[in-house]
């Protein structure tokens, strides 16, 4: 009963419905192989949305994730060009992404600048840095080593490594969010920052941690993105930050912080991913794509809207009705 009422259940239902509608026009879409492909395609969105979720839970927002992704992706490609071995590159993008996230987090934590202002600024700075590094030049498939490109697409137990990475991160995040003090701290800081202080949680430090996690995930995704699409340039993933925020919102992460789950977030990302992948397949003109995803976002927020204060229910007979 209460399971049916949860946001996650509604979202799962909506997703099944969506798949059913698509399948009715194009049965091939729901073939396991194709669904696996959709999942793989959506992996970057899932990874970034998980990072964004943590940040939003703490009452912040990170508009710089896509720029962070692009910068880390470019650095990965440049390192590959210098012959750095892949494990080192992976470590480097994780560290660099975390460092860029930490820069955001530090400005929020130590100087108390609102996160939207900080990340609005760093978003242009990070992307601009790519330009400064490369003079705007692209790094193309033929300039990348075979192993660099092969890693995310190597198939393992029927799924590419990229998808496995997403699955692993989802699993780790699910445990972190529900079963560790840090995870609970994210909810506490967003749910009631004032009360968090009273329980010994530092609001700023927790927000900092959130930005570092979001940054590290963006860094990792940067490599995956560049290797998958085999190209790196200034504008990759341009505007992707809004997709990421949209995925979180659709997934029921409260923009005011403190509420939302990993499951919801993943489903929000998958929902967008399915729409994006299905439109060209179902034969809906690409020109409709934008309006459709905009409407999906609006419908999702209407669904997720927390009811306004339902009142205190003082009357006895009213209590029984609810």
């Amino acid at each position, binding site marked *: 009963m209460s399971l049916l009422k949860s946001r996650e259940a509604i979202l799962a239902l909506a997703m099944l419905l969506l798949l059913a509608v698509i399948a009715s026009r*194009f049965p*091939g*879409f729901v073939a396991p192989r*194709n669904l696996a*492909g959709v999942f793989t*395609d959506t992996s970057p969105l899932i990874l970034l949305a998980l990072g964004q979720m943590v940040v939003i839970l703490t009452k912040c927002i990170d508009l710089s994730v896509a720029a962070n992704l692009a910068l880390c992706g470019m650095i990965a490609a440049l390192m590959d060009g210098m012959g750095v071995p892949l494990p080192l590159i992976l470590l480097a993008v994780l560290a660099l992404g975390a460092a860029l996230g930490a820069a955001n987090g530090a400005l929020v934590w130590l100087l108390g600048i609102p996160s939207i202002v900080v990340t609005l600024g760093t978003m242009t700075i990070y992307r601009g840095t790519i*330009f400064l590094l*490369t*003079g*705007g*030049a*692209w790094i*193309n*498939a*033929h300039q990348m080593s075979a192993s660099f490109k092969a890693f995310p*697409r190597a198939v393992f137990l029927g799924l590419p490594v990229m998808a496995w990475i997403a699955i692993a991160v989802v699993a780790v995040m699910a445990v972190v969010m529900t079963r560790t003090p840090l995870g609970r701290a994210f909810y506490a800081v967003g749910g009631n920052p004032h009360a968090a202080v009273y329980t010994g949680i530092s609001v700023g430090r927790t927000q900092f941690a959130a930005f570092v996690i979001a940054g590290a995930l963006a860094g990792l995704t940067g490599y995956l*993105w560049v290797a998958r*699409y*085999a*190209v790196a*340039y*200034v*504008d*990759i*993933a*341009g505007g992707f930050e809004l997709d990421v925020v949209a995925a979180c919102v659709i997934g029921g992460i409260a923009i005011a912080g403190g509420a939302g789950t990993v499951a919801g977030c993943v489903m929000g990302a998958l929902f967008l991913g399915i729409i*994006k*992948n299905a439109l*060209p*397949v179902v*034969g809906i003109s*690409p*020109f409709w794509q934008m309006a459709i995803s905009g409407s999906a976002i609006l419908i999702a927020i209407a669904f997720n809207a927390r009811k306004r204060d339902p009142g205190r229910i003082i009357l006895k007979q009213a209590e029984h009705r609810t």
Partner: protein
Amino acid sequence: EEMRIALVVKALGIGFFEAANKGAQEAAEELGDVEIIYTGPTDTTAEGQIEVINSLIAQRVDAIAISANDTDALVPTLKKAMDRGITVISWDSGVAPEGRQMQLNPSSSPLIGNMIIKLAADHLPDGGDVAVLSATTTSTNQNVWIEEMNKVAGDYPNVNVVATVYGDDLADKSYREAQGLMQTYPDLKAIIAPTSVGIVAAAQAVTDAGKIGEVNVTGLGLPSEMAGHVESGASESFAIWNPIDLGYSATMIAYHLAKGDATAEPGATIPIGRMGEVTLDENSEAAMADPFVYDASNVEEFSSIF
């Protein structure tokens, strides 16, 4: 005093335009008294180009040679430039006639339209379904080429063009659109991508889908970016004009017009240095040369150049 010619491109950092800049520098060296200002916005928007042009007008450059992001949106600004005595020509991606003195096409649009479908047909002796993966829905030249291609499609009766999709010149979107095409049309035999971003993404998508040999990717691309895919077999062949020559020619034309030793009017001929000369048609447009086809036999040789 040095003549300052601004080479305005769609966006900085695109290999094709970097190569064009090489040609422009070559022309400047040859001419001696020319300084090239290579500039452009960082994303392919008309608004970005307008800001760039405004600052060029302010610097009172002598000539602007532009590859436009939008046929019409730049017209008022370029008109203003001409009003202030600046020579304006467009090259590669054109501007509407009111906004420039002449347009240098890399090749003629009908030739390109024919070329891209011919490239597909050449490797489809038995015919089959092909689809087009274009750039943005607003890019002038792709739209013209596809239009020209459709005009001559009747000459290739075996080839059946089933769809046109848009990858917005974004690697990931193009990749996804290419994937979508292969799913929607399981019998797809070729993807024609008349854009250097799209063709690479499509080749990558074909490789990832394990359809090398089944689906041939062709269209317009840069040898440096396509060399790997020709080698892997994802692309049998593709075409492009030489962007170095294009930048070189545009600079030469701008120079002569700004100097005043040539005029831009229908029927006029303008010398373009080592490339010979061009003749303007009734729309004050000129074509530089035929597109050149690259395949396994020659792609290596050119991939180090552009």
